[in-house]
Structures are given as structure tokens and as C-alpha cells.
């Protein structure tokens, strides 16, 4: 009797596993679908995309590398000019992303260090302000900020894009969450050894906070690479556009740029996808920092 019950339980579990795993297989197929369709379309003339819309099409015989040849400036005509433009946007995005990540992480790290490792008068109030900045959607500040940035003379420059978002509240918040779990005794030991306050923050604490840096780096890189609204307002010259703004300018009703658009879009996902696949285990820690403690 008991053995039989064991058997049905085991087979129930098997059926459950097939259903449970099956749900995720189907879901992931749906998730991959638009990207796969886009990838396939990037090997077909852009004209077709405008005329027929986007759909999965397994007819490999009609696929060509023409769009990518055009993207890399290998097909003559306007190809060279368009290719140069595209890779200029690409380069702009890369530089902007790297600068944003490095500066944001450093600044936020030191702010969080000050907020977490010391006891001082304004501490509680300042932390409240960090939270308060999160409660105002950026879109509300956008227009006055645009005026301010113009008045400061940093419109149409990288500084205009980077500076307003430099002290990102969520980044400070995450670093603080992480540092709170670290032992403060280390600081006193270093002080006795004659290390200055600033020396401690760089030489002692920074190496221990490496995992936090990794997870914030990828979140910040993603945000910056894909950021669109604010850079669209700040950058005015085509030569300064980021990839996202540039791709958006290709979306004309005439559909004459779709060769470049579809190949360029697919090629534009690559850097962030690579970073993601390398750092994905840190990412999950990073994005869930605020969720557990509420």
C-alpha cells in the first residue's frame, strides 16, 4: 500500500515538473519571439519590413547579408556616409555610458559611505532626502532642468546629460544597504594604524564593496545605454546623438532607412547583451536591493 502511494506521489511530481518547466519553456519562447523575428528581418531588405510588417519567417533562401554590408559601409553609394554616422552614434553611446557608469558609481559610493559609516547630526535627514528624490518622477523636473542646463551652458554636452543624474538615489540606496552589513570594526583598526578617513574609504572599504560595484555597474550601464528622453533634449547636433536618438531619427514615415534601422537595432543590442551575460549573477542582487527591506 505504502509503496503504491509512494509511486503515485512520484509520478504526480513528474507530471508537475513537466507542467512547471513547460510553462517557462513556452513563456521564454514568447519572450524570444520579437527579438528572433527582428533578427531574421535584419537579413532581409528593409523595404519588406515596411510593406509586410514583422513576422517570423523561416525561409532562409531569401536571407542576405546586404543590410549588414550596408551598415558596415561596404556597399558603396550612401552606405559609407550612413555607416560613418551610425558608428559615430555608437561611439558616442559607448563613451557616454562608460563615463556615466564610472562617475556615478564613484560619487554614489562615497556618498553612501558618508551616510553609512559615520554617526552625525544630519544623517537621518539626509537619508530621508535620498528617499524623497525617488518620489518625484524625473519627467516633472525635465522642463525646468532643461532651462537650467541651458542657462548653465552645458546644453548639447555630455556634462548636461551626466551631471543631473550623477547622484542617483537608487544607487546610493543600494550601496548603503550593502555597507550596512559590513563590520565597522575594520574602520577603527585602520584608524589606529594611522590611515586617514579618506584613505580608509578607498583602501579598506572599496575592495570589500566590489560585488556592489559590479551589480550597480550593470544596472547603470543598461540605464545609460538605453536612456533616451533626457539625452534627446540635451543633445542638438546630429554628431553628438547617442545610438538610441540616432536610431529614432531613422524611423521616418517614408521607410527609406529601414535597411540601416533594422540591422543597426540588432547590432545595438549586442554590447549590453554581452555585459549582461557576463555580469548577470550580480545583476539580480543589485536590482532586488530595495525590494526585500521595503
Amino acid at each position: 500500500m505504502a509503496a503504491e502511494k509512494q509511486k503515485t506521489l512520484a509520478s504526480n511530481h513528474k507530471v508537475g515538473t513537466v507542467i512547471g518547466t513547460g510553462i517557462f519553456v513556452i513563456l521564454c519562447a514568447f519572450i524570444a519571439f520579437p527579438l528572433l523575428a527582428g533578427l531574421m528581418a535584419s537579413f532581409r531588405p528593409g523595404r519588406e519590413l515596411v510593406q509586410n510588417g514583422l513576422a517570423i519567417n523561416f525561409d532562409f533562401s531569401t536571407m542576405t547579408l546586404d543590410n549588414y554590408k550596408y551598415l558596415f559601409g561596404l556597399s558603396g553609394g550612401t552606405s559609407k556616409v550612413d555607416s560613418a554616422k551610425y558608428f559615430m552614434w555608437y561611439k558616442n553611446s559607448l563613451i557616454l555610458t562608460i563615463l556615466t557608469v564610472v562617475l556615478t558609481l564613484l560619487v554614489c559610493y562615497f556618498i553612501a559611505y558618508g551616510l553609512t559609516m559615520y554617526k552625525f547630526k544630519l544623517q537621518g535627514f539626509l537619508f530621508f532626502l535620498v528617499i524623497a528624490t525617488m518620489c518625484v518622477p524625473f519627467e516633472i523636473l525635465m522642463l525646468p532642468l532643461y532651462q537650467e542646463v541651458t542657462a548653465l551652458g552645458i546644453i548639447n554636452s555630455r556634462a548636461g546629460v551626466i551631471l543631473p543624474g550623477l547622484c542617483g538615489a537608487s544607487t546610493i540606496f543600494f550601496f548603503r544597504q550593502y555597507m550596512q552589513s559590513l563590520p565597522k570594526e575594520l574602520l577603527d583598526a585602520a584608524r589606529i594604524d594611522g590611515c586617514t578617513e579618506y584613505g580608509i574609504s578607498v583602501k579598506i572599504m572599496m575592495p570589500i564593496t566590489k560585488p556592489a560595484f559590479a551589480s550597480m555597474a550593470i544596472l547603470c550601464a543598461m540605464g545609460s545605454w538605453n536612456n533616451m528622453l533626457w539625452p534627446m533634449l540635451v543633445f542638438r547636433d546630429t554628431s553628438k546623438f547617442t545610438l538610441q536618438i540616432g536610431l529614432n531619427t531613422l524611423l521616418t514615415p517614408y521607410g527609406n532607412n529601414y535597411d540601416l534601422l533594422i540591422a543597426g537595432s540588432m547590432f545595438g543590442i549586442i554590447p549590453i547583451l554581452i555585459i549582461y551575460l557576463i555580469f548577470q549573477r550580480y545583476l539580480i542582487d543589485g536590482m532586488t536591493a530595495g525590494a526585500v527591506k521595503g
Partner: protein
Amino acid sequence: MNKFKKIFYSQKMAPYVFVLPFILSLIIFWAYPLVSGIIMSFQDISFGGREFVGTAHYVKLAHDKFFTTAVLNSVEYMLLTLVLLIPIPLMLAVLMESRLTKAKGVWKVIMYIPALTSVVISGMLFRMMFSEAAGSQMNQLMTWLGRTPIAWLKTKGTAWVALLLLCMWRWTGVNMLYFLSGLKSIDTSIYESADIDGANAVQKFWYLTLPLIKPTTIYVITISVYAGLSMFLESFMLWNGNSSPKNIGLTIVGYLYKRGIEKNDLGYACAVGMVLMIIALAINVIQLIATGTFKKED
């Protein structure tokens, strides 16, 4: 000079040096634009200068048909995303945590990928999949179901299917990861003692899991409320610009952008922004009271 150096390096002074960039950034890039936004919402701003017009913009907003449409669209979008993007990712997270799912790592990695694609790229892909051409993915589906192809993005009902699917496509995986981290923080011995008491799976979910991941749920609701209310780029990309047929895709931020950037009517646009802030804060406060966050529970 030496004295200054001593103060600078003292343990008392150090925290203030560390947080100085935050204070500066707070004043320059947060408090100043916020206050000037509030002031601008009471002004008429043109090239000639600024003129105080009192509450005129707000009175005009109350009678502005487009603004009403925008507010209704934004609120509706927010509510629908809450309905779609809270229960489904939660269920998926519970399923992912259970012993029933194999190869968990693979699914987690894939489900996050849509969030990596920019709105420009994902919006373009969805616009093309929902194109009115007979060959588009959705119209192929219609043909397969024995119906005629339709212009998906031209009427609200079908266009919002595209809009919401785009939103679900991008955020289901992200919200699931939030819930997963919440589930991970629950002590599993609670479930073991529930097993001994003979609780079934539904009871365990309802009486243990749900109350225990409340902080995570509140967090996800809060960010969804803000993201839903300030949605703009998704609509901007899906309709290839800031105008949609009969304004079916017009949102509050879309209207703010239209008045402020496209028509250069900054004062009026700032008033739109202020209304958005009031709605967002009001919903946030109601939500926090409803979920009992203000009650001290040490």
C-alpha cells in the same frame, strides 16, 4: 592652512565631505528645478519674459479635453499594468521557486533579456509586428484564425493590446526577479511546520507566502504606479512620434512634452507636470496607508 587641514581630516568633518556632492546635486538638480517648476506653472513664459498669471493654467487644464484624455489614459494604463504585472510575475516566481521547475537559471536569464532592449528598439519591433500589413505577425495570426487583417494601432482596443503586451514583454521578467528575491528571504522552516499542520499548497500561499512577501509587493506596486503614470516613450515609439489617432496613446508626460517641447509653452507644461506629481503622491500615500506601512510594526 595646517589648521584647515586638520579639520578636513578629522573624523567629525569627514562625513560632511563625503555627502557634499549629494547636497550640491540635491540643491542644483533637484530642489531648484522642482521649485522653479512650481513657480513656472503659475507663469506665462515667452521669449519676451515671464508674466505671473496666477492659477490660470490650472483653470485652463480643468477644461482641457486633451489633458483629460491624457490623464484618463495614464491612469488606465497604470491600473492595467498593475493588474497584469503584479499577480502574474508573483505566480511565476512561486512556480520558479518550487521543485517543479528544472533549469531555473536558463529561464531567469532569458526572461530578463527584454529589459535590456531600449524602448526605441522594442517599440519598433512591436510596431512592426502589429503593423496593418497583411504579412505582419498579428495579422497572420488573424488570417490563421479565419479573420480579416485589421489596423491594430488605429483603434484603442486593439492598439492597447500592443501597448500592454509591449509592457508585459519588457517587465514580467524583472518583476518576477523582485518577487523571487522576496521569496528567498522567507525562512523555509515556516513551510515545514505548516506541512506538519497539514496545510495544502493554496493555504500555504495565501496565509504564509503572501503576508511574508508584503514588503516586496509594496515595493513593486510603488515602482509600477510611478512607471505607469509617467509612461511616455512606449507610446512615442509605438506610434512613431507624439501623436496617435484620436489621441488613443496620449499620456500625461506625452502632453507635457507636446506643450513644453513641441509648442514651447513652458508654463502650461509645468502645470501639467504638477498635476502628475499630485496624482503620483496621492496614489502613493493611499497605497501606503492601505497596506499599513505607516503603522509601526517592530
